[in-house]
């Protein structure tokens, strides 16, 4: 009998898996189940071009509406999966429908962390994850209004930039020393702080939000250090938690998301995970990594689908992402948590630089501001794990494609 492929999460990872199953598979049914009502869409525009009203929602769709039926992909949208039972091979939806599977992909993504402080239930405090979240924020966008952005990770930084571009008065607050501090470190993070300040954002670091005040809607943000910031609305971007509730008691191994091996498979045979929800064993970095970025959603979704088809292809992508803020293009590739040396090509204060996070002479990760090509050229060295000549790496006169590297 034709196998039943079921994907829980009509996300970018989920949709990419469905498309890959169809394009590279043979027979079998493909069912894509999503809690949101919209067809699968890409989230990067939600904090940038879509938030600013520069592109319509259709541009964010992973595929046009007609594609799914044309390619024999059944979509069940607006239906949240409630429980997965690996023993009976059944997905149970909140409306009690039962969907049987032979192979299952979990691509449920994450949900926004919320602040639990006084006033958190006031109106005018928004998170940003879905297109509906973006639409709610868009209704607040009027030049001259005052917004406080809580959290200067990627979402907070991009939202702050987009709202400044729309002429709002933006205050951004983060408990770290700089934006993106935990990913990029202080020296690089400082350049992003400078970027925002140069565009007129008031930045507050090493302070946190203690309370929101207002009668019905939020009117003030009070910080631990005692600041009281007037505002018309607030956007909170303090990270996500993997959406794994439906797997509790399933026997599927959970630890910071759904734990999968390098073949995207969980401890339960035939059950896979991909995208923001998956903590995968990375064969190049030799550790478990959970990645919340666009490229991973696509590449891991496709890789999981190939493994669902029995191909046994390890997923060893070098993770990469971009973050456009104002006119600046920030890119990161690789993986690092700590580093012995930060090798900078160009100058950090110049608005265009490449910075490599180096351990044992090897580049673990690279970040570039307005250095898109250079980031691309460093990626093969991250993948090969070869030590490189650090003086050459630093030297703008040396073509990165011909860096000396150990054999």
């Amino acid at each position, binding site marked *: 009998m034709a196998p039943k492929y079921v994907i829980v999460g009509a996300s970018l990872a989920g949709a990419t898996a469905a498309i890959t199953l169809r394009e590279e598979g043979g027979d079998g049914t493909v069912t894509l189940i999503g809690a949101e009502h919209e067809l699968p869409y*890409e989230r990067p525009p939600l904090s940038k071009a879509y938030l600013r009203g520069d592109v319509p929602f259709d541009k964010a769709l992973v595929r046009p509406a007609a594609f799914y039926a044309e390619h024999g992909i059944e979509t069940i949208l607006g239906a949240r999966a409630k429980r997965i039972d690996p023993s009976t091979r059944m997905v149970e939806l909140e409306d009690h429908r039962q969907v049987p599977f032979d192979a299952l992909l979990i691509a449920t993504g994450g949900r926004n962390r919320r602040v639990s402080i006084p006033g958190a239930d006031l109106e005018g405090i928004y998170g940003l994850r879905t297109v509906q979240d973006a639409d709610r924020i868009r209704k607040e966008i009027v030049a001259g209004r005052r917004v406080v952005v809580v959290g200067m990770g990627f979402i907070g930084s991009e939202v702050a930039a987009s709202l400044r571009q729309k002429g709002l008065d933006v205050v951004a607050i983060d408990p770290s020393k700089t934006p993106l501090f935990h990913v990029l470190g202080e020296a690089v993070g400082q350049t992003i702080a400078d970027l925002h300040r140069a565009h007129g954002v008031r930045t507050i670091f090493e302070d946190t939000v203690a309370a929101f005040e207002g009668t019905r809607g939020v009117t003030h943000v009070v910080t631990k250090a005692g600041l009281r910031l007037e505002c018309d609305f607030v956007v909170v971007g303090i990270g996500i938690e993997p959406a794994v509730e439906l797997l509790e008691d399933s026997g599927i191994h959970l630890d910071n998301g759904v734990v999968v091996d390098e073949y995207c498979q969980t401890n339960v045979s035939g059950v896979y995970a991909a995208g923001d929800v998956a903590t995968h064993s990375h064969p190049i970095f030799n550790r478990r990594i959970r990645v919340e970025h666009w490229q991973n959603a696509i590449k891991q979704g496709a890789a999981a689908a190939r493994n669902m088809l029995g191909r046994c292809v390890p997923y060893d992508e070098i993770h990469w992402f*971009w973050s456009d803020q104002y006119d600046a*293009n920030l890119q990161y590739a690789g993986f690092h948590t700590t580093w012995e040396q930060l090798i900078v090509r160009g100058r950090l204060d110049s608005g265009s630089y490449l910075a490599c996070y180096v351990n044992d002479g090897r580049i673990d990760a690279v970040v570039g501001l307005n250095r*898109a090509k250079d980031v*691309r050229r460093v990626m093969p060295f991250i993948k090969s794990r070869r030590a490189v000549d650090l003086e050459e790496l630093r030297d703008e006169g040396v073509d990165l494609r011909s860096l000396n590297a150990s054999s």
Partner: protein
Amino acid sequence: MATEFVTAIKTSEIPVGGVTAIDVRSTRIAVANVGGTYYAFDDECTHEQCSLAEYGELAGTNLTCTCHGSEFDVRTGKVLAPPATVPVKVYPVRVVGDALQIEV
């Protein structure tokens, strides 16, 4: 408007493995030199309008727009990797002496 071949650039001005942008009849066109064979296409990436001459990285006939990672086949303009979904427009070329002509 009828198209015709227009002399655009000297072939020697486009390094092997390189991409150069030129204005031809008020259209910004990028030309890639793939081992001595030339391909012409719109300079603007169909994703978010980055210049393919400036941001494009060529590997064989595959062109990566390094801004956001879209990949195109320079022979056909076909999208090989997202985020772009719309093919880039390609133009016929011919070499006459040391001149590269593009049909626009």
